[in-house]
């Protein structure tokens, strides 16, 4: 793959100047890639971009604050990097951004669901991508799936296939598909009455294990060990095993991300029990877009509207000045 080779060359060029370069490498099975930290030139050999470059490598950047690192990013990942820079959570000069045109990533759960009747996920021995098809070898048989059927939902509404900001860019920038995010995924939720919506969330959250994978996978969640979820002063969430406390955490998480969430969807992807937690964040993103005409992670100079103080908001006219 030409782009992959170009990326490897760029990583090798960047490597001497940085602590490490974060990208993707082989995962635990042929269907999964994994975040990959390249420190030595020989590490770069196993680097892989493409549909299995699922994870958002921006997640790791705040930990490296004070050191210089390289990061390979998809369009969606780059928005997280931009947002981190705009909030001063990482420094622009401490990060070397390598971009490439992204064709979309795989939703592993969709593949596993599609092939559920043919065998166990552990029996997958090979995965190949060619011409809009995914060929999966499972228990000795090769099954062909349409990539569009098994790609991540976010890729279907992606307007930024290329990095918003990059120091190096492999290949030719892909033209944006022109799709506009119309928040179609929220339509069903918005149609519900308040009671129905609450019942929906109570039902979904009843599965929550409180593993906090959603929080740990979120690139904008920088509090880490100081999260309100595990604090008594202040004591926002009780330790009781109740659905409402679980929902309370999701609400806090969503509110903390209002105007900051770039919609990378990692929270929902990593949920081991499949709770659609991204819907909460997208509900707030929609509100922020409508109210403040603001999209997170598009411009390092902009500040999230809920993290600034202005006597008069440009878009909210309380007074007739």
């Amino acid at each position: 793959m030409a782009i992959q080779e170009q990326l490897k060359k760029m990583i090798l060029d960047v490597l001497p100047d940085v602590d490490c370069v974060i990208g993707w490498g082989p995962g635990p099975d042929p269907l999964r890639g994994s975040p990959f930290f390249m420190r030595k030139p020989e590490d770069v050999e196993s680097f892989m971009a493409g549909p299995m470059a699922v994870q958002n490598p921006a997640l790791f950047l705040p930990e490296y604050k004070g050191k210089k690192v390289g990061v390979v990013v998809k369009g969606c990942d780059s928005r997280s990097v931009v947002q981190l820079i705009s909030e001063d959570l990482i420094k622009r000069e401490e990060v070397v951004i390598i971009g490439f045109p992204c064709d979309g990533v795989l939703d592993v759960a969709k593949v596993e669901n599609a092939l559920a009747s043919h065998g166990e996920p552990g029996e997958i021995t090979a995965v190949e991508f060619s011409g809009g098809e995914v060929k999966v070898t499972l228990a000795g048989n090769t099954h062909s799936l349409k990539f569009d059927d098994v790609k991540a939902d976010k890729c279907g509404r992606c307007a930024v296939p290329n990095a918003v900001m990059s120091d190096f860019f492999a290949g030719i920038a892909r033209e944006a598909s022109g799709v506009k995010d119309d928040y179609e995924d929220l339509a069903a939720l918005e149609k519900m009455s308040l009671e129905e919506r609450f019942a929906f969330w109570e039902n979904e959250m009843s599965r929550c294990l409180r593993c906090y994978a959603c929080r740990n996978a979120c690139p904008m969640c920088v509090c880490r060990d100081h999260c309100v979820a595990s604090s008594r002063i202040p004591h926002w969430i009780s330790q009781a095993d109740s659905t409402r406390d679980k929902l309370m955490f999701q609400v806090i998480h969503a509110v903390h991300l209002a105007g900051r969430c770039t919609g990378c969807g990692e929270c929902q992807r990593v949920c081991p029990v499949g709770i659609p937690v991204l819907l909460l964040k997208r509900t707030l993103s929609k509100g922020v877009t409508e109210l403040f005409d603001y999209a997170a992670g598009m411009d390092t100079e902009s500040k999230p509207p809920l993290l600034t103080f202005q006597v008069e908001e440009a878009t909210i006219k309380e007074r007739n000045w």
Partner: protein
Amino acid sequence: MRIGVFICHCGSNIAGTVDVAQVAANAAKMPDVAFAVDTMYACSEPGQQAIEEAVKQHKLTGVVVASCSPRMHEPTFRRAVERAGLNRYMIEMANIREQVSWIGKDKEANTRKATDLVHMAVEKLRLNRVLIPKQIPVTRKVLVVGGGVAGIQAALDCAEGGMEVVMVEREPSIGGKMSKLDKTFPTIDCSSCVLGPKMVDVAQNDHIDLFTYSEVESITGYVGNFEVTIRKKAPYVDWEKCTGCGICTEKCPNKKSFDRHNEGMGTTTSINIPFPQAIPKKATINAATCRKLVDGKCGVCAKVCPSGAINYEQEDELVTVKVGAVVAATGYDFMDWTVYREYGAGRYKDVITSLQYERLLSASGPTEGHIKRPSDGKEPKNIVFIQCVGSRDVSIGRPYCSGFCCMYTAKQAILTKDHIPDSQSYVFYMDIRSPGKAYDEFTRRAQEEYGAQYLRGRVSTIVPLGDKLLVRGADTLAGQQVEIEADLVVLAVGGEAAHGAPQLAEKLRISYDSYGFFMEGHVKLKPVETNTAGVFLAGACQGLKDIPASVAQGSAAAAKALGLLSKDTLESDPQTASVDLKRCVGCGKCWNVCPFGAIREMDMRGQIKAEVLEAVCQGCGLCNATCPQGAIQLSHFTDNQVLAEVEALCRC
């Protein structure tokens, strides 16, 4: 903890629709409550004594008073528990009057809600901590914003009391609206003769630092220690050198500049001194019309100025001063009367405002005191005055009465007869409002001695009729339509808050009403205070008022400022934010949202943390609400205290 709960009857204000004895009985069962009782007037002397005695007798460590809004009486009860030996922050109020008894008639529901509110207060109080205020030094200097008669009075009284004063006025001269008036009611004495000496006093007073043609750019800090940045707008004249000789204004070739002082009743030169008694008497160049500044060709004033004061390169200058208190005296402006299409919406030259008419009456005005109508300079004989133009008119969103128009219209009718003995004035009015001392007699004199014909009714239309104006209206007392052929129509245009007043209010962090008038601390009991400590109000900025009332309020605001700054130190409010360094991750969201710049970044052993500047913090709680990990907490309003209240409410 041992909590005492006091449920106030407030006479029948609360007891009328709340079963206070039942609320007290319910409160007695709440956690940590050792004593609960209902009391007739908790704020009265026996009421406060009962609280003090109960604290001692029942060994209480905290008190809940369920009564009115804490805005008025929280300080009262804080002092009461302090006298009883408790920390003043170990008291909570539940507002069962404004939030319960006054808004609902269902006694049973009210009693339940009052119980809920008391329960919330008890739960919060259980988490209250002793807070000790600090002593902070104060700057014994007062900023007066606005150099009208109210501001002048406030400045002179402050200076008289030994305080340093900084006065900021946005026009080139102080004097305000009063300096534009010819005469004043009800004595018909010359406005500039009574105001002039006061203006001179301001200029000559060593304790008053005067900044005219200047505006308040920003204010930071807090009571006792404000830091004010003043923008001195460039007059393109070095005022240190300008002697006010006026040669430049005689020679300036551009004589078509809008004359602000004369309300556009004449034109003036691009470089001008607004009026003969101006303080300071310095020239200012109107940059919008000055030929030199617009297209670089001219420079006559620089050539003729004997002291070489003209400086076309001059730029705005920012000056910073420290003050301990602020008196806002920004006055008023007139509403845009051209919204009234029935009065011609500004199309007829001979329909003018009362302040424009005042300039025609004035000996120092554009017509040297001869009444000449704008269209053809003829002396008008029939003059129609229309009152309540933009006052008491709900249809244009001005329901309020401007308060002074009835009086100045009567004055102008009297002056008109003085100037033109064979003239006839007609006054269309809605009601005559003249409640001041010697005011009603004055309006009667206008009618009885000066023959002004008062017609109770509104004017429906004004149409041109040859070189006259046909004024068509109703006389509701006679029950008939009237038509008057007028030579001149004078509109008693209603006042509104000074343009830019809300913006200044935001800088001062004081409230203002929907019309832009500044809100006093209490309508009746704190008429010159605001809810921001150290900021006082004088004059029409608080609500339209006439000259005597403005002067009285100027003195009142000065008395308040002098009282505040009579001590060398003030107590700081300990209800401020503080950072739990263990929990802070240095993400910086708090310092981005702080409206007061009270939070800064600091380095703790290589880690970035937030630090609250206690003296600057106003306790607004924005940082508290923003901090994702809850590392910033606002004393007396911690997350856990608010959560305890919510919890109490939800569990009821």
